[in-house]
């Protein structure tokens, strides 16, 4: 039986959620009808555009752009601070609505879901359900969504991006030559800034040209990624809809510092503070990490990172911090930094794991300390116990970790 997959994508999610919430609380103007953006805090140098309204788009304001540059393009731009708990509750409401149609709902990111409708409804066709979901999101939840309907996840996702906002599109196999292939190749999922120049060199500018290119040629120039995007251009994808929230592949935490970090002491304090938060999250998920990555961004915004593999997986703040510290010392070029990040990946469950002969004897003592600290923080708040290094350092003892239960973007279907 052919699958029926829906992709539901909230239109300019953060902004429209903010707009609906404000309208519900008596705001007079609908933010979606004026040039407005949701942006980070400029004082702490997180001032970038996170989401924009459609009128703001007309001023050529782009997501990820600095707020001062956006204000330059549109002087009467309305800038709102983000409120992540609200976005999570909107996302939850959307998932609840979708679950009324099928139990197979995969939350792909905070504003996108896949729904597997294969064989679930006998009364209505998939097209009717897709239309109904779009209408119900608008009338019940107050924000508009784009719904894409097709036979696999990739085509459903591409369909929902055909024309925005508040639209329902189908992209079945027989519609590919007409609807999908004429699009520029940059619209294809996973053809990003690294891939595009290579494709342009091969004279590939549309998705159709990519689909008709020789897979061997693509593999030669782009390695395995070439084959993946060739398959995508031909609408081939057999990834399943995994109900629930996606299995976590890694836990990370990063922060932009309010001042330039130019000495090792402060940088290490930041790393410790980031590790502290991320390791707490790791433990609360019952996971151990095997790979530690440290990433840095300097004042010129150039980004670099370094990672290492641990001999045995761990969730201990101290051991993870030791690795991060080592990585940082190896890579830092002594220039002032504005952004630091720590990421733990290659996760395993902490039920059974291979210990090593070389394991520190402090491991088990550390586990007990971490557990106790987590419990105290759980009961009395995160600032109940902090490390003695932090007071008067100007650096928060638990850094980063805005409400980010779900990533905003993903690269795996």
């Amino acid at each position, binding site marked *: 039986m052919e699958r029926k997959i829906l992709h539901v994508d909230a239109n300019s999610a953060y902004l429209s959620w903010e707009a*609906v919430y404000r309208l*519900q*609380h008596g705001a007079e103007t609908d933010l979606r009808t004026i040039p407005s953006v949701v942006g980070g805090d400029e004082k702490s140098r997180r001032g970038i555009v996170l989401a924009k309204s459609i009128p703001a788009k007309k001023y050529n304001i782009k997501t990820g752009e600095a707020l001062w540059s956006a204000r330059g393009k549109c002087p009467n731009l309305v800038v709102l601070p983000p409120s992540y708990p609200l976005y999570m509750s*909107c*996302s939850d409401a959307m998932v609840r609505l979708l679950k009324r149609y099928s139990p197979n709902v995969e939350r792909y990111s905070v504003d996108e879901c896949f729904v597997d409708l294969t064989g679930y409804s006998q009364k209505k066709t998939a097209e009717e359900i897709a239309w109904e979901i779009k209408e119900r999101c608008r009338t019940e*939840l107050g924000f508009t969504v784009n719904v894409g309907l097709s036979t696999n996840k990739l085509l459903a996702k591409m369909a929902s991006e055909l024309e925005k906002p508040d639209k329902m599109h189908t992209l079945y196999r027989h519609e590919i030559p007409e609807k999908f292939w004429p699009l520029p190749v940059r619209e294809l999922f996973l053809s990003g800034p690294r891939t595009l120049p290579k494709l342009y060199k091969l004279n590939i500018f549309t998705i159709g040209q990519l689909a008709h290119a020789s897979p061997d040629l693509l593999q030669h120039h782009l390695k395995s990624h070439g084959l993946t995007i060739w398959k995508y251009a031909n609408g081939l994808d057999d990834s399943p809809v995994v109900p629930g929230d996606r299995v976590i592949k890694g836990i990370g935490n990063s922060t932009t510092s309010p001042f330039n970090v130019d000495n090792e002491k402060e940088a290490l304090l930041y790393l410790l503070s980031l590790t502290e938060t991320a390791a707490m999250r790791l433990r609360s998920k019952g996971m151990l990490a095997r790979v530690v990555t440290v990433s840095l961004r300097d004042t010129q915004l150039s980004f670099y990172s370094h990672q290492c593999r641990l001999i045995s997986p761990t969730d201990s703040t101290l051991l993870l911090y030791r690795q991060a510290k080592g990585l940082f010392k190896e890579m830092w070029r002594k220039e002032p930094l504005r952004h630091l990040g720590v990421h733990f990946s290659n996760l395993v469950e902490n039920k059974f794991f291979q210990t090593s002969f070389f394991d520190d004897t402090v491991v088990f003592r550390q586990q007990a300390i971490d557990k106790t600290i987590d419990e105290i923080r759980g009961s009395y708040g995160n600032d109940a116990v902090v490390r003695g290094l932090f007071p008067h350092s100007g650096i928060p003892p638990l850094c980063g970790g805005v409400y980010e239960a779900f990533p905003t973007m993903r690269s795996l279907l």
Partner: protein
Amino acid sequence: MRVLMQSVDMICCTNRDGVITPIKFRISDEKEENRIVKIDRILNRKEEKLAGNRMLVFTVQSVIRGRECRFEMKYEFSTCKWFLYKI
């Protein structure tokens, strides 16, 4: 009707089926003077969940300064607050 969205002190009744009925509320006006309004009739009640935030919206009728007025009140579940929404 004009949107006001002012929070008010409310006396309401919740019956054994969980149905909430507003009875009377106190609102302070521009001069910081308290005014008590008794709700005479509930004309309509509906639930909205815009942006995933559940609220009850009541269209009600009362006599204010000797004149019969129709207005809307909102109850927000997440904060347990009552608002005079539109008048």
